């Protein structure tokens, strides 16, 4: 039925524009800027003497991202296939650069490198995400039906696995590492006709996670930093001033929003109570100010965005394009879902930003470049025609 939809519009206009997709994207971008201003103006003024400090920087990044997106959307996506290996290698090198003097430390972690443009630092993990999408799309096409075998699956996961370990261990950024792995897993899932293997792996993964949590909860086998994090996750009120602080503050914000919220700009928690309120925790400020209805609207926008991209993926002129779009879907969806899960304390607290909305220059630019790929694929649907 989705295919019919495209079928109908095809031929009517040569340059079909997916209005819903554009609307959802621009809505999220603009809404993100509004919320960054709302969430950060207070602390921005306190820290930098400029209420619009974060807003300005994010607006510049979003503008650059939009230009890059339009540019990329005009380039036929097959152009990029020759860079698939290069992308992976380049991101590996960039990750390593974090450890050199080029690396920049912020928020207690060394995850950025200098770009030479003042005020903008690059997070190599963002490069790695797009590199993995491109690399796997090419690899899967080349591998063909061999992907059905265990061996095929494992070969497919080698490069993402290495990047996963590098991002986790070198930049100490487990959440980004997990997203890279999740993108790869979803792309391979789509590419393979098989279900059993994925259900088995998924089941084992869930069982391992539950087992780990149980061990942490009922025994003292683990006593590391991450074990504490899991304990605090299970009961954030057990350590309200330290480890559970951010989670609890986020829950305070969400809970005090109620159904309709306090009104835009009326958040109390953003007044230095909730750390990273314009960043990873921005969703809880949205909940506080706009309530359950506002939160539902954002979730709906993401769903529309993903739905429109799914239709593009399904109607892509070839598997390569479809996989590229699938990769972008995975990236945006996984990141959004994990962010909301963290904010609602559904999973242990880990730093994941909300796509298009959280403050973060690298993140929004690379997300828009990925959207550029999607639009590029969408364009060729029309061009190819019959």
């Amino acid at each position, binding site marked *: 039925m989705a295919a019919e939809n495209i079928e109908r519009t095809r031929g009517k206009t040569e340059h079909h524009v997916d209005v819903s997709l554009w609307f959802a994207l621009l809505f999220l971008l603009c809404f993100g800027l509004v919320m960054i201003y709302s969430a950060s103006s207070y602390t921005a003024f306190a820290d930098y003497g400029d209420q619009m400090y974060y807003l300005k920087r994010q607006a510049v990044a979003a503008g650059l991202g939009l230009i890059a997106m339009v540019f990329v959307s005009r380039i036929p996506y097959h152009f990029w*296939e020759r860079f698939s290996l290069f992308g992976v290698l380049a991101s590996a090198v960039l990750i390593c650069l974090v450890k050199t003097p080029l690396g920049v430390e912020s928020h207690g972690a060394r995850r950025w490198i200098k770009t030479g443009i003042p005020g903008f630092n690059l997070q190599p993990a963002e490069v790695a995400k797009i590199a993995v999408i491109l690399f796997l799309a090419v690899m899967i096409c080349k591998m063909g039906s061999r992907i059905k075998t265990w061996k095929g699956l494992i070969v497919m996961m080698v490069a993402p696995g290495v990047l996963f370990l590098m991002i986790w261990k070198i930049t100490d950024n487990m959440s980004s590492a997990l997203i890279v792995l999740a993108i790869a897993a979803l792309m391979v899932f789509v590419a393979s006709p098989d279900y059993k293997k994925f259900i088995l792996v998924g089941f084992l993964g869930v069982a391992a996670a539950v087992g780990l949590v149980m061990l942490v909860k009922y025994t003292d086998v683990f006593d590391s930093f991450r074990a504490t994090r899991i304990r605090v996750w299970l009961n954030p009120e057990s350590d309200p001033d330290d480890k559970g602080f951010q989670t609890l503050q986020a829950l305070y914000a969400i809970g005090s929003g109620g159904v309709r919220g306090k009104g835009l700009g009326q958040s109390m928690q953003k007044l230095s109570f909730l750390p990273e309120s314009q960043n990873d925790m921005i969703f809880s400020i949205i909940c506080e100010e706009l309530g359950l209805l506002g939160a539902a609207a954002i979730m709906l926008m993401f769903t529309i965005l993903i739905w429109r991209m799914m239709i593009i993926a399904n109607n892509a002129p070839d598997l390569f394009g479809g996989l590229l779009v699938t990769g972008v879907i995975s990236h945006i969806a996984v990141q959004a879902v994990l962010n909301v899960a963290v904010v609602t304390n559904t999973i242990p607290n880990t730093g994941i930003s909300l796509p298009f909305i959280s403050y973060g220059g690298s993140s929004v630019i690379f997300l828009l470049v990925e959207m550029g790929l999607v639009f590029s694929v969408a364009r060729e649907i029309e061009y190819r025609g019959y």
Partner: protein
Amino acid sequence: MSEDKIKTTDPRLRSKLRFYHRKKITITFFILTGICIFLMGRLTHFMIFCSEHYAEAARELHERERSIKAARGRILDRNGAVLADNRTVCSVSVIYYQIENPEEVIRFLSQELSMPEEEIRKKVQKRSSMERIKSNVDKETGDRIRERNLAGVKVDEDYKRHYPYGDLASKVLGFTGSDNQGILGLEVKYDSYLQGSKGKILTMTDAKGIEVEREGERRMEPIAGKDLVTSLDVNVQSYASQLAKQALKTKEARGVCIIVMNAKNGELIGMVNEPEFDLNAPYELCEDDFIGMEGKSEQDVLNAKWRNACINDTYEPGSTFKIITAAAGLEEGVVSTDSSFYCPGYVVVDDRRIRCHKIAGHGSQDFTHAVMNSCNPAFVTLGLRIGAERYFHYFDAFGLRKKTGIDLPGEAGTIMHKLENVGNVELATISFGQSFQITPIQLLVTAAAIVNGGTRVTPHFGVKVVDSGTGEEKSFSYPVEEGIVSPETSETMRYVLEKVVSEGGGKNGAVTGFRIGGKTATSQTLPRGTGQYISSFLAFAPAEDPEVIAIAIINRPKGTYYGGQIAAPILRQLYENILSYLGIMSYTSQEE
């Protein structure tokens, strides 16, 4: 750009999507949508079902609390005269982050509050959320400061305890501290009723404690304390106070105590402890306060000044205690009005010779005259007849060993010999009120029990507490012990003690037109040998059915020191003025 410009080397990259690819993409979409729905469920859980819990926790985090004092309950006398009241005063504070013109604030406050500029500057420049400049500022000044409306200056209204009668009944009423807590007297004892509960002003602040203007304030109104209605009578108290002051001055005494009590129910109508102190300035000391307190700390001097001698201090009662010995003798049946005693001016007990105050001796006398004469040898004889063991039995039975239970803090206990240490000599001295110590209130309550028919009452001030808002009342009841002495003993004692006043040593206590019973005493201060005395007189009226009983004690008078001569006139003057006022009918003797 067109597609043919892009050279694709590998045809595999042009392979088409298969059906299963589309199916899987769709499945992926639905899995993700499913997760979104699940997360919406989580959000609903927090934002609807736990909303109140988290909103409340958040509010607690955001709100800064400023307390509003509750108006403390008033203390009233039996007729509703206000003994302790509240005055509205102001406290002036500054809020660092709101001050716009610090210099102006400093100048203005310094001028209005007459405080040095440096002191205010220090507080104005302190980066705290709120700094108190001065409290207890009178209302007019507070209003002026508020009207000026300077940014960052806050004027809060506050209550300050005020005692309209100044030093009247100071040691009974007591006073309060800066935090509305009772420090002395009834203010302490009835603190829980008087205090009420504090209200709150809750202000929203950010994490650094800076007020968030747009959120406004939330007020939780304070609950005012309840009024305490006491049995004190301002008129009786004032009159007694005046007499005590006069005696203190003319006799250059260390102190004068007067207690006036309802003999039937224990309500205390007056309790004077001269020198009193000004309740509106309890911490002020004058030179006189340091007399006899050399080398003591200021706090010790204050404590001495605040002491209520009627209940906090014990003394040797002397001859007034003969009431107890006589009652014990009557109860034991070892004496009756027919008994006769012989006084040669002394009595020999074991190897001791105890003198009578009348060196020539009282000669032969009956029981009534022995009491009228306050004859020591007669009472020694009586005491020895009762015997130590039985004497102690009555001492306990009359309730002398336990505290009276008066509703004031710090009542002192009785200091008495142990029975096994009491020989004849000790028993002899106890019989006429020496060698042990009790409090004046103890003596008064015991004497009341003996003359009122045998009912030992609990002396008290607190009658009831009243909620001035709702009019709700709570009356207090106090334990009463009946049958301390038999009605016959009581009747005999009333008769004998009336004789003391009408014909005996208490003549100066007689009030024209009223039948008064009483007993005088002159006892030495402890330690002995300083030539200092305590003169006292205990009297009740009307003698046939005592309604009111009072005691006057003059501590270390100069000059004449006999109780019959200096203490008795005090109660006489008091009774002359208060008996009809209290509604006690005058008795017109048939002869007149």
